């Protein structure tokens, strides 16, 4: 049974059909990279998965249960599906530590002590233990993104969604974020990563999905898809990278 199962997903913004029937499984422990040109619907699909965006038809199953079921608790579900954004989206008025503890206390009802312990553990993991008491707004981009990852990890998510996590970073900071993500992959965390970092996809992903104009054109193992793409649109996209 896949962790997440996406069935015939359709999504329109007004008259613009952005997702035109997406079918796609994510297995536990796998790292899926989502590639495709701008406007192909990658972000929209990711946002549908954690319901920041509603969809028009089709279904998304999480552990075999529909996430749009009337009885489903959307906030509880979201706490299990972490999201890391291109623009970090840290809570600017809080310290790094508070960024990591707030939702633990408010959503998971953990005690302050427990939440803090967890936060410090993951801040250590992303190499920012020394910055626990710094104000979030004072960090560099790469540091912010690592805090955002730690913040998501603190919720003990079953899957982490990344939407171009390195796209708004200065080149010298890209590696620090990618190496954190690599170590998470090695730990066996399930991840879906929208990225333009083909090197990362090739090295870390078990599965690569190429999207174009709202449909999945081709998917497969990175070695296969990168070295031997079958579809002409995939070939064209990869040649332009």
């Amino acid at each position: 049974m896949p962790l997440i199962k996406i069935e015939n997903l359709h999504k329109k913004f007004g008259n613009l059909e952005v997702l035109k029937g997406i079918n796609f499984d994510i297995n536990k422990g796998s790292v899926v990279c989502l590639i495709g040109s701008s406007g192909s619907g990658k972000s929209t699909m990711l946002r549908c998965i954690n319901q920041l965006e509603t969809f028009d038809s089709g279904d998304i199953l999480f552990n075999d249960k529909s996430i749009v079921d009337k009885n489903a608790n959307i906030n509880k579900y979201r706490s299990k599906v972490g999201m890391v954004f291109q623009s970090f989206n840290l809570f600017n008025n809080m310290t790094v530590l508070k960024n990591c503890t707030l939702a633990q206390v408010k959503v998971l009802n953990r005690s302050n002590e427990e939440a803090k312990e967890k936060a410090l553990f993951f801040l250590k993991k992303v190499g920012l233990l020394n910055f626990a008491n710094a104000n979030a707004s004072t960090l560099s981009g790469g540091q912010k993104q690592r805090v955002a990852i730690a913040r998501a990890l603190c919720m003990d998510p079953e899957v982490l969604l990344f939407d171009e996590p390195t796209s708004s970073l200065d080149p010298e900071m890209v590696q620090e974020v990618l190496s954190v993500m690599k170590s998470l992959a090695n730990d066996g965390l399930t991840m879906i990563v929208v990225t333009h970092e083909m090197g990362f996809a090739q090295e870390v992903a078990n599965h690569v999905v190429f999207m174009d104009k709202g449909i999945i054109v081709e998917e497969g193992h990175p070695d296969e898809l990168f070295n031997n793409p079958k579809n002409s649109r995939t070939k064209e996209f990869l040649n332009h990278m």
Partner: protein
Amino acid sequence: MELITNAFEIFTKYYPSFILGAKFTLIIAFSGTIIGLFIGLFIGGIRAIKVESTDSFVARLFKKFIYILTEIYIAVFRGTPMMVQAMFIYYALKPVFNWEPIVAGIFIVSINTGAYMSEIIRSGIQSVDKGQSEAARSLGMSSMQTMMLVVLPQAIKNSFPSIGNEFIVNIKDSSVLNVIAVTELYFQTSSIAGSIFKFEETFFVSALIYLVLTYTTSIILRFIEKRMNNTKTSYPSSQTIDYVVNLETETL
């Protein structure tokens, strides 16, 4: 020169009345601003709620209706003079509450300020980037938690200069409450001036007192603003884990 010596004389003779008037002016301006701020947080928060695509038809209609109500409230209280509001509300509600002018005065300044605060808070909410709300929601926080814990604190901080400005405006504009006989500074001044027939000098004293009140307030507000913005811009780069833990035990 003569103006100043005469004014000084008047002040030394009548200072208890001036001080009493100033006291009422400050009480009205301060409580009116604070209550107005709470009204603004409430109304501004309501106005920031968007119709979502998942909403049912009834929910949409309800949200629309509430929005129109707030729209009317804001239009009426920003679009008519506070002096007229004071007269109308004081006399219209007098049979109901049988209220003292001072109570009516605070009530009027509060709802008048609330209309301005609503717009200040709404634009403060809009100044907090949407990404932070999305991040909060993606962590499983409810829309209420997101608003109260993430958005509003920053909205208030961002709009603090405008909120403070309302306080200063209220110190001055509470003078219109003399029409319902609230014994604030303007009312006291014109009683004194009328009883001694020295309008120029008496109102000169009054102007100086208003100036002292507003200027002092603006200095205090600027000080608070500076303190608020004085976030930690530097941090020790070689803290030990123990240090981090100890430091946070109290603040969490």
